[in-house]
């Protein structure tokens, strides 16, 4: 067990190093931020001064070395544009991002799980089909389109929900739904198939034989056992929402992490892009690692395959 754990941790760290390198190469390829920072009338000298100031005049290999060393020490550097520490930038966006991600995940589960359970119970029936069409519909239009339509309908036509920006709980409803609807189909299918598996098991047959009420069998014995993959999925979903909500954040003027990174790409603010992508990847890899460990703890047989 400990060997497995150590192995996985080392692997995760190595994965992160790969991510760091990929991000470094990508951002360095994407053009010189100095050109964007300088006004059109800046002279060659201005350009040199700024390049040196930003440390972009050194050889790439040296820049890379410094970069990796600093990250290892927890220093992500300063934003090129605002000259503020990158960590500050990321920290101040996290609350909005976590808030939206959490509520979206919650909505997604709220929509997906009950529909999935019913869909499994009424397998092949009208409700099954209806639930699946509802879920697939959410995946059949671009997020930005769904978001804009929701804004127009609830914000402009009905005037019951705010059209954009971050504020009270009301501001959360539309963006969280936009984000959550999309993934609820995944939760639905996952719940459905997990339920089908559980319902077919001896354990449930036994419970039924004992004469337990069908609703109790379904919700207590059935769902509880089907929930593990769903919960796992929801956790990873949440991690992904933290940075993956770029479009939703843009449409709803939500000051989140995804938009920060997106805007930093446009302005070639390398340090923010690098740190942002790295943080998101690290969160995912860590989440993945935890889920793996959890599974191996629950099911010792896995270790053989993972080694």
């Amino acid at each position, binding site marked *: 067990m400990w060997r497995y754990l150590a192995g996985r941790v080392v692997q995760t760290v190595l994965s992160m190093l790969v991510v760091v390198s990929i991000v470094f190469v990508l951002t360095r390829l994407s053009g010189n931020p100095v050109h964007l920072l300088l006004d059109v009338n800046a002279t060659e000298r201005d350009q040199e001064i700024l390049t040196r100031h930003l440390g972009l005049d050194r050889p790439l290999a040296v820049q890379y070395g410094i970069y990796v060393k600093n990250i290892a020490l927890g220093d992500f550097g300063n934003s090129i544009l605002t000259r503020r520490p990158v960590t500050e930038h990321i920290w101040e966006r996290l609350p909005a991002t976590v808030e939206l991600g959490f509520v979206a995940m919650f909505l997604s589960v709220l929509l997906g799980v009950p529909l999935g359970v019913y869909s499994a119970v009424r397998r092949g029936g009208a409700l099954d089909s209806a639930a699946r069409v509802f879920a697939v519909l959410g*995946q059949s239009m671009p997020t930005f389109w769904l978001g804009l339509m929701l804004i127009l309908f609830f914000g402009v036509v009905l005037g019951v929900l705010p059209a954009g920006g971050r504020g009270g709980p009301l501001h959360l409803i539309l963006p969280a739904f936009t984000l959550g609807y999309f*993934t609820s189909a*995944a939760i639905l299918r*996952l719940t459905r198939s997990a339920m*089908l598996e559980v319902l077919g098991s001896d354990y449930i047959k036994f419970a039924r034989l004992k004469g337990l009420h069908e609703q109790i069998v379904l919700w207590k014995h059935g769902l509880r056992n089907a929930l593990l*993959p769903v919960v796992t999925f929801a956790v990873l979903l949440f991690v992904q929402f933290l940075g993956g909500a770029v*479009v939703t954040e843009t449409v709803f003027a939500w000051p989140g992490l995804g938009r920060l990174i997106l805007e930093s790409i446009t302005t070639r603010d390398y340090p923010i892009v690098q740190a942002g992508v790295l943080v998101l990847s690290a969160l995912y890899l860590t989440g993945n690692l935890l889920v793996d460990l959890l*599974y191996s703890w629950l099911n010792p047989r896995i270790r053989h395959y993972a080694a």
Partner: protein
Amino acid sequence: MAAVFAPYLAPRSPTDGDITKKSIPPAWMEGADPEHPLGTDRFGRDVLSRIIWGSRISLMVSLVAIGVAGTLGTLLGLVSGYRGGLLDAFFMRLTDVGLSLPIILIAVVMVAVSEPSFGNVILVIALLLWPRFARQIRGETLAIKEQDFVALAVVAGRSSAWIIARHIFPNVVPTLLVISTLQVGYVILLEGTLSFLGVGVPPPNPAWGLMIADGRGFLATAWWMSFFPGLAMLLTVLAVNLMGDWLRDHLDPKLRQAGRATLTDSPLESPVEPPVGATPATPSGRRAGL
């Protein structure tokens, strides 16, 4: 169908515009021009023709991207699943890395690095999709490897490559088909999202996502500019998704078993955003191997 016969079906050229004929409404509305049944866009281009030609572009982008990603992913998945050991660990961690990258943001960076073009959009999407295939196929391979006929082949002294090609690959084809079908819708949407962020298929190509993104700000004055391509996209994605579901339920007996269905399911669902990685691929993939 429309995609193949676009040159014959489309009444007009998709890129030929005349700005004096801009924003003409569809045929049944006041001020319409019978030459443009679904109206014109902001540059006076025929919306119907653009949708028909657009089906070609949207489908081509998804087919090529899925083809590339599928080939790469399947290859890695097969080798990784069959060989196991260090190679497997290496490939799977690489897949982890691929899945962990925030897909949309990386796409934006990659397109910003080069410049928006057909090839780049396809390349970006393919690079982001392959881990999904690798994960799935590896899981399948692990299961198939345990079967008796594989063991027999090994005893018979067949080479690994021969076994993979003759015994394992044919058995993962149904899964591959299902994954690929379900990815078509995803890629069409991804193309739209990239267009929204300004890094999609370059204009004046009539890609659906681009058309929707272009018209999104003009719903009061020219709703048809984005509504009809939106409808086309909705119906297409709905159709391929339902077809994928159907395929999974009917074509592949193995996948019908509930536990197995889980693993094919989840990665496919990953929405345009959150990225592909939003899947319990690791745990359920592992389960499949048992």
